[in-house]
């Protein structure tokens, strides 16, 4: 079973995540897409780890997951907080930084 298949799959998943981030307005879905991208990276990590026969690849997946968990916790807290202030979580309505 060749490494390439896994990497192609990883690239496709990642791209779907990117497109999701770009086209959806709902902040929660954008967050999910980010998780999708992280997972795609994880897949590449594990696949290459097996190809090289190195444990570090799987170890990094572990770290990525820990960071992802932290990020989701914070991100969702921010979304909740934004929703309380603005009654919306649509990112195009949260544009106070408009120049």
């Amino acid at each position: 079973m060749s490494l390439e298949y896994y990497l192609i799959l990883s690239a496709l998943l990642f791209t779907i995540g990117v497109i999701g981030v770009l086209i959806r307005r709902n902040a929660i879905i954008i967050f999910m897409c980010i998780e999708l991208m992280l997972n795609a990276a994880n897949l590449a990590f594990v696949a290459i780890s097996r190809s090289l026969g190195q444990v570090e690849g799987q170890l990094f997946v572990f770290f990525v997951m820990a960071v992802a968990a932290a990020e989701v916790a914070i991100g969702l807290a921010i979304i909740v907080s934004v929703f309380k202030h603005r009654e919306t979580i649509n990112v195009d309505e949260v544009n106070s930084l408009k120049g």
Partner: protein
Amino acid sequence: MNPEMILFFIFGAVSLIGAIAVISFRHPIYSALSLIVTFFAQAGLFVILGAHFVAAVQVIVYAGAIMVLFLFVIMLLNLGTLSEKGALTGKLKGVAIILGILLAAQGIYIAVNALNNTEVGSEAAQEKAAALTNNPIETYDIGELLFSKYLLPFEVTSLILLAALIGVIVLVKRENQTEN
């Protein structure tokens, strides 16, 4: 076509479909459920790759903890179906899809070609991978490395989680005060 190949295509197809479903559904709940499907399929891929520990963590942490958190927030906010009409419809959407296709093409290009000249694609690595199939990486190996060579990053991870914990409390608590 060996069993591994068959399983790869099944799990790969499921995760792709799940991913597309995530970005397609109007209602966040459906997106979340699709994401869980994708995560499970990925856990299957990890099993095929011999990464049993990662597969287990994927199911427990992602599909279990993180996705529950997502669902929890979705239900808390009770958003319902969202209109997708907004500033981003139209031009930007087109640009985004074109960019996505370009990015995917580049990723595939890397996967197919670029690896030929790297260590990952080398013959030595191929042999090693073949040997590994017979002798897969055990959870024991991960644990040993984690608590010896990567002890410091491991502890730093715990700090990140702690910071996240405190951050969430601060964010939510301030809201309560302003409301009172």
